């Protein structure tokens, strides 16, 4: 059944992986466009294989399509070869389910997963023939919305979007669509709709806020108008057992990155690692019950035919009764030949018993994230993992037969010295030594330790939101030290570009003036900046110059505690005073207990849910 436009057929023969552009997957939802009231184009600003691996899109797709008079369809960014062919033939971007052009949709929704996808977002609007700026879309139609982690500071995109959803999306999206439906019926204007939408918890309408700047370029004030709230609170879903979760999703015909069933077992994280934005944005820590997880796993396996389940969350090994959960699932997964995998393992709760219960991790090496090389540095970032724990864990792994260990680190962390950077290499060497000292290590196979060092990007709503990112020169120097001091042939070192991290830092803590840069970028054909083959740092620098903006102001400037941030009118429950306290503790090298050990009064208890109200 072909739904895509007829002219597409001919170009499909010319592009890589045409299966990305044809739809027709089992369980994709096809409705009659004349019989629904509101059409929502869910746009993922990256290629099909990445978008189809994303759990959020599956949840929201299911939640919207459950409502008979809503129809949510999927749109992905066409890869550069397809984009070129579409442009050549004037074929506008279309949705996979109906093949309708995106410009026919009531809502165009994006998920904001990473800063480097911003050009793709605007490029997708451009390919759809939809005006980029919100003010150039005066009608109650083509409402452009977004949610996801980067919505916590959406200011660099503020001029383009009508609405941002803050926090958990499964309820608020539906409420806003419902409001739109009412407004359509009564013939209300777009302005009226937006004013009313701004009253819904979790809805941020950027056009209802006037931002003024100080002489030095910092924000002076952000004043709400038309009755919009002074603080926009994120939406929070407390009960994960009753929250909507899909029983099925479109099963891709071509292989995608995470080609398996993915079930969310908990939301939030107890840890409070100071660099991690998600750890603060998604508070409080809320678990699903074993029975709910089991039911959802069974339903999804039964509808999709996948033989692998990923139990996903920010930190699945923190699930309070993980072994019981795995045993409960094993009642049926073994006979059905379904394997279980955990996407994130922590160094401090890895055990042979756990490994026996999850089979699929055996396929490749083991990955852990100590994040920093020295204990001092790990204390600064509140990654409460010790060297002893790491060495104990790798010893368990060696005894169990693993020989490949991958360790993730960050460089450019606050207070970091060259000694802290070199400690990464020492740690790698100690893991190699532990292998040779282990009497039960596998015979005949050498150990391989890969150390991967990413450049730290300071993010809003973390204790490091005031920190000026290391300059690229300094990051390059640190990378050079890592490269040249590698102590062992069994250790390999890799790192990511400082340039992309710099750009991420600019947009992560950027303000509305950056909209001009993004608009120019898209005019000039920028896209897929998270892909090395498309990223052109020098051209980006030229754009900043053209717009009269200094990227260093956003990325490398250390802020004072009294500065008003572009995102200060957005409220994720965690108090700014708490983040200041955490920042000070970081610089003193003091750790903070996790939510399970002790409440640190961050502010997330305002939601009256999850671990904040449960007995510890």
């Amino acid at each position, binding site marked *: *059944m*072909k739904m895509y436009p007829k002219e597409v*057929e*001919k170009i*499909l*023969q010319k592009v890589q992986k*045409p*299966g990305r552009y*044809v*739809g*027709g*997957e*089992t369980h994709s939802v096809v409705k009659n466009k004349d019989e629904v009231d509101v059409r929502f184009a869910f746009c993922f600003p990256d290629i099909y294989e990445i978008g189809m691996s994303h759990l959020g899109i599956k949840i929201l797709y299911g939640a919207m399509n459950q409502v008979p008079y809503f129809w949510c369809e999927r749109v992905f960014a066409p890869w550069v070869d397809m984009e070129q062919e579409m442009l050549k033939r004037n074929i506008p971007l279309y949705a996979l389910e109906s093949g309708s052009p995106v410009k026919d949709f009531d809502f165009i929704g994006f998920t904001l997963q990473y800063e480097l996808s911003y050009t793709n977002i605007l490029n997708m609007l451009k390919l759809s023939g939809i005006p980029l700026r919100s003010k150039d879309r005066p009608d109650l139609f083509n409402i452009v919305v977004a949610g996801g982690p980067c919505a916590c500071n959406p200011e660099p995109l503020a001029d383009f979007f009508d609405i941002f959803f803050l926090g958990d999306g499964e309820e608020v999206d539906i409420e806003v669509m419902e409001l739109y439906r009412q407004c359509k019926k009564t013939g209300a204007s777009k302005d009226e709709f937006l004013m009313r939408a701004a009253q819904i918890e979790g809805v941020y309408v950027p056009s209802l806020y006037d931002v003024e700047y100080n002489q030095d370029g910092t924000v002076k004030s952000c004043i709400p108008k038309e009755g919009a709230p002074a603080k926009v609170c994120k939406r929070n879903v407390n009960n994960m057992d009753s929250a909507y979760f899909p029983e099925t999703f479109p*099963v891709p*015909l*071509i*292989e995608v990155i995470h*080609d398996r069933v993915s079930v969310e077992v908990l939301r939030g994280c107890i840890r409070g690692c100071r660099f991690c934005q998600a750890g603060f944005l998604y508070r409080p820590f809320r678990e699903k019950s074993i029975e709910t997880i089991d039911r959802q796993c069974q339903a999804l396996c*039964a509808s*999709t*035919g*996948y*033989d692998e389940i990923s139990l996903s969350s920010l930190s699945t090994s923190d699930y309070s009764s993980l072994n019981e959960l795995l045993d409960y699932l094993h009642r049926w997964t073994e006979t059905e*030949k379904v394997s279980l995998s955990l996407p994130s393992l922590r160094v401090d709760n890895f055990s042979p018993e756990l490994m026996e219960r999850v089979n699929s991790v055996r*396929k490749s090496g083991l990955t852990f994230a100590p994040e920093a090389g020295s204990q001092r540095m790990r204390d600064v970032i509140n990654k409460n993992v010790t060297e002893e724990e790491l060495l104990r864990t790798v010893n368990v792994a060696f005894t169990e037969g693993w020989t490949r260990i991958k360790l993730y680190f960050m460089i450019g962390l606050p207070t970091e010295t060259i000694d802290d950077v070199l400690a990464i290499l020492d740690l790698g060497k100690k893991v190699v030594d532990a292998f040779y000292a282990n009497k039960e290590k596998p015979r005949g196979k050498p150990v391989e330790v890969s150390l991967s060092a990413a450049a730290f990007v300071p993010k809003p709503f973390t204790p490091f939101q005031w920190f000026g990112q290391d300059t690229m020169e300094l990051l390059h120097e640190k990378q050079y030290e890592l490269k040249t001091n590698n102590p062992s042939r069994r250790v390999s070192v890799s790192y990511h570009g400082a340039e992309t991290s710099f750009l991420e830092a600019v947009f992560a803590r950027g303000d509305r003036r950056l909209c001009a840069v993004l608009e120019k970028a898209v005019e000039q054909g920028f896209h897929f900046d998270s892909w090395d083959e498309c990223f052109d740092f020098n051209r980006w620098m030229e754009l900043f110059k053209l717009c009269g903006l200094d990227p260093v102001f956003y990325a490398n400037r250390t802020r004072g505690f009294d500065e008003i941030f572009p995102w200060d009118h957005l409220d994720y429950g965690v108090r700014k005073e708490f983040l200041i306290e955490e920042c000070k503790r970081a610089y003193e090298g003091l750790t903070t207990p996790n939510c399970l050990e002790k409440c640190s009064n961050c502010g997330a208890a305002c939601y009256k849910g999850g671990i904040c109200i449960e007995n510890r």
Partner: protein
Amino acid sequence: MKTVRVWFSKTGVAKYISHLDLTRCMSRALKLSKLPVWYTEGFNPHIYMTFAMPLSLGVEGLRECMDIRLTEDMELSAAARQLAEHLPKDISVLEITEPVLSFDATAFAEYELCFDSKDPQALADVLDEILSLDSIIVMKHSKKGDKEFDIKPHFALLDKQIEPVLLRVKLQSSCSQEGSVNPSLLLEAVKQYKGLEPYAEITRIKLLAKDFSDMR
């Protein structure tokens, strides 16, 4: 245990599923069908499946086949119905049979090429002209690089039909485990010899044995 042959068609959007992705698709459908299929033994057991001849990406197949093993005896028509229910919309099970020939008996395939053309007669003449040459050398693109290849011995024209803006060509080409020739190479020849770039939809109608009888 019994080996059975699943005959299926792969049309519409399914023609854009690569061979590797097709095996994944089949494996999910077989799992959902709850047929008593045999799993390979070893550390990572998977459903045993073997295909006669992989179909090129972008080519439709009207009668493709794969072999699976059933660990219990069952009515093959019931098995076909069960599997059909769980396949994507554009993959249909035609029937399940007991295999007669082994897969290495496959020697040729019959294809239909459906050309979009404003002047189908002229295009037909071009094809005739090229096919009457003693050798037809085209550049064959592969992972190892491009190389020259004579497609002449591998093609036999069966039939031509001229319709208002359409040219339908039926042909046979080599299709065996020793080597297969994709009919898109004929399009490549038209491009190289005549500088034309006609667009054609290609369908593999069926697989043939050495004596040109249908694969069974």
